[in-house]
């Protein structure tokens, strides 16, 4: 099968959906000729024109609000938010307007909108261009949240998101844009709420999201060489969350580590760990462990930044302890 980058996969997904449905359009800063700073959208304006690949002023709340109104009246906007950190700027439009419109109108209005943005540290971009803020969005009822972990996932999830009648936020890992993976030429969609078991195992379950799926895969390889059999699961979407697959794995292996690049406190790791504790408690041999990003603003210096996020080595270290019954309590 051919291999393409995550960036090309997203580009293909958008182009295919824009060809299929003329109500789909892209709106954001430098999305047209510039194709975004990451060049993910290169070539789209040439095919679809500036009416459907719409460059905006630097006014995130404004273009997000326009997208919400456009979605309510018969179009399917894909909003390009250059950095995930800018989500703070659009909170009212995303959380008070888009997320609640269907509910507040008793089901009469809907907001079929996709917000494309990114996450991920270790790119030496400091505290305002490196955050992983998907937990903030996942906290708000009415929004769906997808976290692609490869080019294959990015394409299938984007196509599903565009066809979804709800507001969907997709966080791409900006370090992964140039990573290649096998992606079929034929059309495919990846349904929301279906976790992907990447590797089966019997001693411990590693649940990883987005950028942390590769970290978990590498950790599982190292653990395998030491005779520890690790299962690796990518939930793909955290809203909706495929609880059944996660619980079944926890019941099977009896030990779980949840790895996610958002801040550890009050985050995705805590939520998933809690659900497993509530629903699989009697099957567990150890506390479910959370591994998120350090609860500090992302520092600039490489010497500091690299220690703020989970690594294959730190996951392996914690997994060993859990499997050997050493860990009662982890920090």
């Amino acid at each position, binding site marked *: 099968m051919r291999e393409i980058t995550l960036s090309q996969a997203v580009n293909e997904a958008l182009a295919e959906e824009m060809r299929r449905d003329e*109500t789909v359009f892209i709106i954001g800063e430098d999305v047209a000729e510039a194709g975004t700073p990451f060049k993910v959208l290169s070539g789209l304006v040439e095919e679809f024109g500036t009416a459907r690949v719409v460059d905006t002023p630097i006014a995130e709340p*404004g273009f997000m*609000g326009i997208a919400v*109104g*456009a979605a*309510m*009246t*018969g179009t399917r906007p894909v909003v390009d938010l250059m950095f995930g950190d800018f989500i703070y700027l659009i909170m009212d439009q995303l959380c008070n307007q888009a997320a609640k419109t269907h509910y507040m109108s008793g*089901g009469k*209005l809907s907001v079929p909108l996709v917000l494309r943005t990114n996450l991920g540290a270790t790119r030496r971009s400091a505290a305002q261009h490196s955050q992983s803020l998907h937990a903030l969005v996942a906290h708000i009822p009415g929004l769906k949240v997808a976290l692609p972990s490869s080019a294959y996932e990015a394409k299938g999830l984007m196509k599903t998101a565009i066809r979804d009648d709800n507001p969907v936020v997709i966080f791409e890992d900006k370090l992964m844009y140039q990573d290649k993976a096998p992606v079929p030429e034929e059309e495919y969609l990846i349904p929301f709420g279906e976790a992907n078991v990447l590797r089966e195992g019997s001693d411990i379950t590693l649940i990883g999201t987005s950028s942390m799926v590769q970290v978990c895969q590498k950790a599982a390889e190292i653990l395998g060489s030491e005779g520890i059999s690790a299962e690796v699961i990518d939930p793909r979407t955290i809203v909706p969350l495929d609880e059944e697959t996660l619980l079944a794995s926890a019941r099977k292996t009896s030990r779980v580590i949840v790895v996610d690049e958002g801040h550890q406190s009050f985050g995705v790791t805590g939520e998933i760990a809690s659900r497993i504790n509530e629903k699989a408690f009697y099957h567990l041999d150890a506390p479910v462990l959370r591994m998120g990003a350090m609860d500090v603003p992302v520092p600039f210096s490489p010497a500091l930044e690299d220690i703020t996020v989970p690594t294959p080595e730190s996951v392996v270290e914690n997994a060993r302890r859990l499997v050997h019954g050493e860990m009662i309590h982890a920090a």
Partner: protein
Amino acid sequence: MSRAKAKKSNVDDYLRMYRQMARIRAFEDNANQLYLSAKMPGLTHMYSGEEAVAVGICEALRVTDKITSTHRGHGHCVAKGAEFKEMFCELLGKEEGYCRGKGGSMHIADQSNGNLGANAIVGGSMGIATGSAFTAKLLGKDDVTVCFFGDGATAQGLWYEVMNMAALWKLPVIYACENNGYSEYTRTDEIAAGSIVARAEAFGIESHQVDGQDVLAVNALTEKLVARARKGEGPFFVELKTYRYHGHHVGDINRDYYRSKDEEKDWKENRDPIIRFRSWLVEQGIANEAEIDAMNAEIADDAKAAVDYALAAKYPDSTEVDMHVYTDVKHALARGDAR
């Protein structure tokens, strides 16, 4: 009042404008009574006094044209074609309300008439209105969207962002600022530097000021702007000077600290949009006093019947609580989770 001479061909339009203004006043009088008698959950914001704004504008719109409304939104909702029964049911949180009781006074949306909804965030619908106009342009429709907001909302940054884009892209949107002189409990001249009209003009947007108590003047201006917006000559801005008779909300009773009773009396007695338009109708021979009294009595009966209906109507079933969170999931919450 407008010195306009009545046109024979417009008699039905004049009577409908009067009826719609009287319906808004009747709706608000009943809503206020529901609040005062503790029959309504929560609180609400009265539109009384501003009727000529909503009616003058909405009478210039088609059903397919869109509006976005505010927390003070009952007037816009009635003027765009909503029914009393579904509105009172919504105010009381009943299943037959426009939003099945899930929105309440501050979130009534009536999609069938192009009302994209009231909004409880001041200025919160400015993006939505502009986006609705964007849809019209993208899909090649000639729908026009009117964005209603108050003077208080002109302090929100969002307005400047979306006006900029509306002007750049020539979107068919009319920004209608209902300047009632008060931003909640504060005089507008204390929160607004310079001129509000000049702010829209700074984006190259053609701007107008009109007496918001004169329904004919509001309507005549809006008719012209809507026709031009349909042809791609928008956006436009209109500042409508008006007055709210009640406080910021129904519970804002003692308001001497921000405005005088004399001032309120002056607006109610000398500039009331309904009284003024009624005199004009009689003066121009369009209706006589007895006919207008009969119309008012019929509206009062309709309102009372709708209130009685809503009071007796049923609340939504508790199983509705997690419905309509997502379009494709009947019940959003997993059974068995602790509550």
